[in-house]
């Protein structure tokens, strides 16, 4: 039966299987590397068949689509579920193409953005454009740095914190996912852990919109061993005034 399944790759990329066979083949695909590769190649092939019949759509369609997307909420990326309290470390070496890396950390970034979207459904697309703008430059620089290392940890309430550190750039980015909005008049403050001494690393205010959940930490990492988050009065504090909600060691450079 397995040998038979291998032969379905062609019909699969042509969307020519029955629903039952489709389900069966997709199960097979998840643990058959040769079929997975073949599917990628054959899908790239059918794409060429499609490109060969390209026809410009009526110009009004562009106007309609651009108008429509302004009111369409974007789906979050698919992220593997994480259990609260479990710490997971991923190393991303320089061998991974930068493009793949960028997409993968952009996924992490948006995973954070989702948190804000969840209680800010009404925010319009302008905020999303802002996300792109404000997350640019240095933040993107960290995300796309070939030496970036990533660590995630779960919080008690099911939220997830992810920190990305680039030794080369000496900067860190913190991405929150599913964090509750801070109480009125309070903000989340990030701290660098300099061997037990907390150094201010900037504020994170989900009320700012989607940008609030992905932040470039203020200042260089400068040898800090980790980071933490506390709840502080608006404007932040020079030193933590409450117990940390989260403390994370920075992952070692890969």
């Amino acid at each position: 039966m397995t040998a038979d399944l291998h032969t379905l790759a062609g019909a699969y990329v042509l969307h020519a299987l029955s629903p039952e066979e489709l389900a069966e083949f997709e199960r097979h695909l998840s643990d058959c590397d040769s079929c997975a590769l073949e599917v990628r190649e054959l899908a790239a092939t059918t794409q060429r068949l499609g490109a060969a019949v390209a026809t410009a759509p009526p110009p009004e369609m562009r106007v309609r689509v651009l108008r429509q997307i302004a009111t369409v909420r974007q789906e979050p990326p698919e992220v593997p579920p994480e259990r609260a309290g479990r710490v997971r470390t991923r190393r991303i070496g320089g061998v991974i193409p930068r493009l793949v890396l960028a997409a993968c950390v952009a996924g992490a970034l948006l995973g954070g953005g989702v948190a804000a979207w969840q209680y800010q459904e009404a925010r319009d697309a302008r905020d999303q454009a802002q996300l792109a703008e404000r997350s640019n430059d240095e933040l993107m620089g960290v995300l796309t740095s070939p030496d970036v290392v990533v660590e995630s940890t779960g919080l008690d309430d099911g939220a997830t914190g992810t920190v990305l550190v680039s030794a080369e750039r000496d900067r860190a980015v913190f991405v929150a996912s599913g964090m509750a909005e801070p109480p009125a008049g309070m903000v989340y403050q990030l701290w660098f852990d300099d061997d037990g001494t907390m150094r201010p690393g900037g504020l994170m205010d989900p009320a700012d919109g989607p940008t609030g959940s992905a932040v470039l930490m203020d200042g260089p990492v400068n040898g800090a061993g980790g980071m933490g988050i506390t709840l502080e009065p608006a404007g932040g504090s020079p030193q933590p005034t409450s117990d940390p909600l989260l403390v994370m060691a920075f992952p070692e450079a890969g």
Partner: protein
Amino acid sequence: MKEPVYIGENPSTAPDLSELLVRVAQGDHEAFGSVYDAMSGPVFGLVRSILRDPAQSEEVAQEVMVEVWRNAARYRPEKGSAMAWTMTLAHRRAVDRVRSAQASSDREQRAALLEHTPAFDEVTEQVETRLEREQVRRCLRTLTELQRQSVTLAYYRGLTYREVAELLALPLGTVKTRMRDGLIRLRDCLGVTA
């Protein structure tokens, strides 16, 4: 220490589609405009080849482009190019539409599909796709008749392999195999890499 960040392999070239999709996933409308300009032609052409009806084709192509916006964050570069991802989406949507409409239609109508000439012969010639079309046409000619019919009936007409088998009066296993080895031959002729 501030330097421009380049995500693509070659900083001097325009951003490629995968890179643009990453920006679309971040809500970048301008990037989406570029993605639309690059993809709407292939998407519309493919959908129209399957659905035929211009109004329906426009409706489905529009849905596909909006879905690209909505699901950009779910695009995974390691699974294939941005264009392949979009065209898979477009094919899926068009095929779903044709199948839901076909559920009630009769067999004769399907048989009539065989009479159609391949879609790319009917499309108005466009400069930017002419080379692509020539190459695809040339490579399709390297397939056996059964391979070519199996592949094009499924891809350009949206038929299932069972329908293709019925139409061509061939055993199911034969059609499955012809679809696969036909696409493999096409892949090699076009020099496609994943």
